[in-house]
């Protein structure tokens, strides 16, 4: 079953067409990667999927329902959560509060929003704890987000997305700026999440992509140029050309 689909989705910024007629179909439960050289339009595609801005044309279908143009703050409630390529956390908050804010947003009830102490929402607190546990930060939950290392902030980035209990997880380069050692940890983490969530992954590091993906879509200059299993993509001549330029072709 397809849980997330785009149909000929296009986004233009003036003369620049960042995403050009992309049609994607994400199978429920799979890990679907989107790769492509810098500036291929991968992050713009994520921004379209999460409602940061509406597409110029085309449509987005989530769980058989058209969600094109739904604003960002509604998207999370539908069950789509994202992480960011550039760390986007709440710096002065403890790690627990970072996750808690995301968990509360998509919680069952906002009763007592203005008067009940924020500790009195066991469901949100439990989900926040679980999210921190899943990324391996449960031991640091009282530390402030601005005081932890870059690698840990990348884990926190993921925890905030997980705390929303999403059905589809959109991960934008979770290993951006990580050391080889931290990258290995992150890969293990993504692999552990595989199966529990439908994951759409943007990544640059080929070894990660090839080892974890079920399917791969390749973008180049805003368009989709190939799609297939990791094996198929590796052999695809057009993908090689896009990545290596004219030389290897």
């Amino acid at each position, binding site marked *: 079953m397809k849980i997330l689909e785009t149909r000929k989705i296009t986004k233009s910024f003036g003369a620049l067409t960042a995403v050009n007629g992309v049609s994607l179909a994400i199978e429920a439960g799979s890990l679907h990667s989107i790769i492509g050289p810098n500036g291929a339009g991968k992050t713009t595609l994520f921004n379209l999927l999460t409602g940061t801005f509406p597409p110029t044309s085309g449509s987005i279908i989530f769980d058989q329902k058209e969600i094109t143009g739904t604003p960002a703050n509604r998207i999370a409630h539908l069950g789509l959560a994202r992480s960011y390529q550039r760390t986007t956390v709440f710096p002065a908050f403890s790690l627990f509060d970072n996750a*808690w804010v995301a968990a509360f947003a998509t919680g069952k009830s906002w009763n007592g929003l203005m008067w009940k102490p924020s500790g009195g929402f066991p469901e949100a607190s439990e989900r926040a704890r679980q999210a921190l546990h899943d990324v391996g930060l449960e031991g640091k939950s009282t530390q402030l987000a601005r005081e932890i290392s870059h690698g840990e902030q990348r884990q926190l980035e993921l925890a905030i997305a997980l705390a929303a209990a999403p059905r589809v997880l959109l991960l934008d380069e979770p290993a951006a700026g990580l050391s080889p050692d931290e990258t290995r940890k992150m890969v293990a983490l993504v692999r552990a999440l595989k199966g529990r969530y439908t994951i759409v992954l943007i990544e640059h590091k080929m070894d990660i992509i090839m080892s974890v993906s079920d399917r791969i879509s390749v973008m180049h200059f805003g368009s989709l140029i190939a799609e297939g299993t990791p094996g198929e993509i590796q052999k695809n001549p057009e993908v090689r050309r896009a990545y290596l330029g004219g030389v290897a072709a």
Partner: protein
Amino acid sequence: MKRPFILIMVAIFLLPLAVRPAIASEIWIFAIFGLGLNLLLGYTGLLSFGQSTFFGSAAYVAGWLMKIHGVNAFLALGIGVGVGAASAAVVGYLCVQRSGLYFIMLTFALNQLFYFTAYQWTSVTGGEDGMPGVPRPALLGIDFKDPLIYYAFVSLLFLFCLWLMKRIVESPLGKILQAIRENEVRAEAVGYNVPRFKLLAFVIGGAFSGLAGVLYAMLFGIVPLEAISFVFSGNVVFATLIGGSGSLYGPVIGSFVFIWLSESMSTVWARWPLLLGMAFVIVVLFLRGGVVEAWHKLSLKFFLRK
């Protein structure tokens, strides 16, 4: 938590011994005004330069109703809260569409709009002369004309406001507003309608300002034109920053310092605003957390050293 509360109780009881009851009342009224601003400034990270819009509007409307229609104090205060919240809803709705400098300029510009309306509408507001003759009607048989009784009433309302604000900032709403301050993009992405929450902060802040405005009008028996001017808007920002915008008690301490300094020094030294200016420079350069931060640093240095 216990200690600030005890300190405030002590201050409430000792203050009338040190200064005239009118000034003592003014301190707690201004603190209520500051609590409302701080929800925007300290918690949501929105610098509103137009808080006197809500303060002044409420003072004029409630003052007029008490003066002309003999409305009782209880109703007048309720109306003031309503006018403060309603005017904040209108102003806030327009302002939250923009951010940064444009947001600040909008709050300021709309404040000027209200100011000039009050300035021109002399038949009601008295224009530059202010609106005199605001009574202090008795409530449930208690005569508020006695300054000490009125002081007690103001203090009680202040304590109620402080308790209410504490509940609000410790609720999920407080967390969400702070999350907006910390990272607006992420707050939106995790599922909060950021403009709507900013508007809510405006309305709550406006309600507090409105209450303060009516209490102020009843205290002095007049609504001066300054009550709706940018001077008042600036003063409350000023006082909150000096006290410390990062904490619940910051505006309370700021109001204490600000009113006490301005009332006690203005009779002694005509150039007293120099002192305020210096205090402000020191806060901005060295103590971004205001008096509250200074207190924390001092207590760490002297009381916790083994």
